[in-house]
């Protein structure tokens, strides 16, 4: 019953509490990327994130702190001179880890990594897979108002702009106007008044792979 009532209460909320997930003009981590997201034995990976700011454009930041405190493979995280790297262990260590975690022989070993950016300002959790190599996805075809986008976007005021991105899981974000269905491949951008900012799309492939694209955006 509590589950039902909480769900009813959540549905009956008059409007979402601001700021919402699609709003870029706030301090938040938008996406975390491990390159590559799945590592073969002995392979190295780097971690970075797309960070949104309340008072400026997005930036791409390297992790300031990485740890894997909940895994027997915590030594995968290494600090090399001035940055963190993930270094997959050898096959024998992975085989031991599969036994400890109750995984089938040859299965990918999940490793949960705590990734902190800008000195603990943004706390995130990211899963990395160990045992075989895989790349981040290439961002699928994107259309904005039915057209492939240019490097920068210039849109008219008070317009409804159809956004489309092909991909498994899509998230749209903007610092100009408002977004409907921002977590769907097909979203709508209501441009509103004159503005200068950014439009972002993030694609996740469901296996840890992440890709994003940022367009400078002018509404005039």
């Amino acid at each position: 019953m509590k589950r039902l009532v909480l769900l009813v209460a959540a549905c009956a909320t008059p409007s979402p509490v601001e700021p919402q997930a699609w709003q870029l003009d706030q301090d938040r981590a938008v996406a975390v990327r491990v390159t590559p997201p799945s590592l073969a034995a002995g392979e190295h990976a780097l971690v970075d994130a797309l960070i949104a700011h309340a008072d400026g454009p997005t930036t791409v930041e390297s992790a300031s702190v990485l740890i894997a405190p909940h895994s027997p493979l915590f030594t995968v995280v290494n600090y090399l001179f001035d940055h963190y790297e993930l270094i997959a262990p050898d096959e024998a260590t992975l085989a031991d880890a599969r036994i400890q975690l109750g995984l089938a022989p040859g299965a990918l070993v999940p490793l949960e990594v705590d990734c902190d950016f800008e000195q603990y300002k943004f706390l995130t959790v990211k899963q990395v897979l160990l045992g075989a190599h895989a790349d981040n996805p290439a961002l699928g075809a994107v259309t904005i108002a039915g057209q492939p986008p240019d490097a920068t976007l210039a849109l008219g005021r008070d317009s409804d702009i159809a956004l489309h991105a092909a991909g498994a899981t899509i998230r749209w974000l903007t610092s100009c106007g408002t977004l409907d269905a921002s977590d769907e491949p097909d979203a709508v951008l209501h441009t509103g008044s004159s503005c200068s900012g950014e439009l972002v799309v993030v694609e996740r492939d469901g296996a840890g792979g992440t890709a994003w694209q940022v367009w400078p955006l002018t509404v005039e």
Partner: protein
Amino acid sequence: MVARVADADELRDALERAPGTVGDPVATIAQTQLAVVTPEGLSIDGAMPFEVRTLVDGFDTPLFHLDGRSALTWWGSTLAVEHAPGVQWGNGVAQLATVTQAPKPWFAAPLTLTTVDAQLAVNFADRRGVARIWWPLEEAPGPNLTRVHTVPALDGQYSYTLASTHHLLVRLNGYGMLDSQHYDSDPVAHPDQHVSLFRTAFRLTLEELYARGPWTGTFAQSVLSTTDIVERGDSQRHDEGRTGFGARNEVRRALRDVAGLAKLDVAVGAEAQVTAHDLDLAYALDPHENVPATGVVAPDDTSQVYKGTIWTSDVGAWTSARTQLAPNIRAMTGLRADLFGTDFALQPRGSLDLDLDARHVASLSAGAYRRAPTYADELEHSDLHPERTSRVAFALERRPDPLDRGTFGVVGVYYLDRTNLVEDDGTGKLANTGRGTTYGASASAGYYAHHWFALANLVVEHSDRQVTPTTRARPFEYDQPVRLDLRVARFLGPWQLAAHWSLRAGLPYTQVAGAHYDADRDVYLPDFATLYAERFPWQHQLDVRVDRAIGGRVRAYLDIANVYDARTAIGWDYNFNFTERRAVTTPAFAPTLGIRGEL
């Protein structure tokens, strides 16, 4: 304890018209009995709402619609809160018991129309029934929402006398409730954002009541069918269907002059309940009292997956003896045994009443109670055992003068000790490690004269719990230390004027200290501060109601809930990353017009 409504049936006329309740008997009894009103139901004496049984004609039955209104009517039933049930009742520490009224020997057909519901009842000499429909709320509650009630909330009760002789009465009672709500959280949202809620509950009970000389027998058989469906988006569902059968039998004999006792009433009884729970679950973990939560469930969270049928059973037997030890001393003692699945539990209970004079009674009661772990995901943990509660209470009661009425009241103290409480380790793993303590004092004072009725109730209570015996004690989720309820009614010819004011301490909540971002799921997950270390503000509210009799068969009324529009925070809405929050408040000022006519 607080004056029980059952003891004050003569005040029914005033209670039925309790301001701010629009005729909802559970709302009225929650106010007068100072129960803690929670999203899950009523919390009584520090019990979780699911520890408080809701009984219809002696059998567990869901009572509440999705919006919290009860599927009961004053006209069709009598209702009482029982703080310390006798040995004939098991699987709970308190209960909200409703009994379908037998048909009256005359014809009546009252029709009630209000701005929120309509109710039609009919009574013949051998049958009676009542049906109610709640007006659907078609308007969207906000600019970004679509809320559609495809089926209005419906409920009904029915009683049919099959046979009536000098010694035997056989009757069939029915109860039904139907609810359906559908939401789209965003008008242009993808169909996978759709939320559907659907609930039905039907209970059919056959009762045989036998009385001959010193013997009385009460026998009942009952079937229950419920459906409880939650569908959210295209990946989350929490569907449960329940089919249950129960039988209760009790035989009593009244003896005289036995073993030096002037009166001795002995009873033996037994009951059996078997229920099949058909589950189809792909949803977030069920909430538990010891795990902080914001109520926000990520739409991709299917941490709990289960499909199958789980059977539960409860076989109980009891015996009790009630005697008069002296002209002014009465005692009751009894023993109940329950077999919950493979868990066996013995629960002794007893009470002692001392008549100080014609209107003053001192009562001491004590008892042991058990609750089988069959709530929500407890069903999926066959290794759990029943929760245990021991209760002791003392009360001093002043009864109303049967002729002059006048003043009446109760003062009392109570203490409950809980062990074997089911606790969640935060990952959905449950174990009987918890403990809890509740103690409090209550006072109730009333005055009933020819044209006046006034009642004041106060409870001061402390309730805490521990996840394990070695962890620190912290407030119980529904610990409400102070609850005050004042009401007054004035009868002026065809007019009845009534007002009600309540004051309640805020419930505890757990502060969100921050959040971390799950980058693969694209959701923020809250990080909590100390469990239940914060409290919501005090709640207070004034309700008024004016009734006007028009002739002998029509009555009209205006009920205004929350007259001065006090909106107190009782919860928080958060934004997606828990950096901002907004108060969820008590309901706003709400006037309701109603008219009732009788054929």
